[in-house]
């Protein structure tokens, strides 16, 4: 199972702030049929309620919302930001965003282990940020 495909990658997205960047990353999931419109809004709501906790590591955020009917398939999208934006914690500015659509259960767990193993690579965020094509991103993520 490959984690990512070209239609869920956005390079040098021009989002102007954290909310726009969450919506932009979420829209790639929506357009590819992974989530409903409502899920994108739920990610924004979560950010507004729980704060910037999903800015998990320096320059990296992983917005997501509760597993629900709004998630049609488990999956991720990935965007890099032309102008890095602040989420409001020590990991600012955020340059790379992976939006996560999660269904609960065993399948999701296996999926998250794969996501984690990508993120555990040395200098992963800088490497993703320096990619100039979707193919370069895919080569790192779908190894």
């Amino acid at each position, binding site marked *: 199972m490959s984690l990512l495909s070209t239609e869920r990658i956005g390079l040098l997205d021009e989002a102007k702030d954290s909310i726009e960047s969450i919506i932009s990353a979420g829209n790639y999931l929506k357009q590819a049929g992974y989530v409903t419109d409502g899920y994108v809004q739920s990610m924004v709501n979560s950010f507004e*309620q*729980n704060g*910037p*906790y999903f800015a*998990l590591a320096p320059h990296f955020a992983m917005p997501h919302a509760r597993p629900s009917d709004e998630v049609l398939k488990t999956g991720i999208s990935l965007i890099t930001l032309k102008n890095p934006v602040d989420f409001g914690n020590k990991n600012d500015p955020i340059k790379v965003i992976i939006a*996560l659509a999660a269904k609960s259960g065993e399948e999701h767990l296996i999926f*998250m282990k794969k*996501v*984690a193993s990508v993120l555990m690579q040395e200098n992963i965020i800088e490497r993703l940020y320096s990619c100039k094509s979707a193919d370069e991103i895919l080569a790192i993520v779908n190894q």
Partner: protein
Amino acid sequence: MTRLKIIAVCGFGVGSSLLLKMKVDEMLKKNGMTHNVETCDVGSATSIACDIIFTSNELAGKISERASVPVIAIGNFLDLDEIQDKGLDIIKNLMS
């Protein structure tokens, strides 16, 4: 050896907390320890019996107000050193 119950907490218990759990597992393994690490969402974190809680800086405040066990706040979920520096001594103390 006593096994502690550790929980990793995020907003919904499905995304960030799983990454954190994997890092805590890795830190325990590196130090030759075996404990049970589970994930949960911020709403139920304080109603689950456990020995120690790992979470983000943002959620730590909310959780500490209601928790009766140590709450470790992590800024970088991918940084093994931070997780070890903040958590290892507390885990060792709980076992002694």
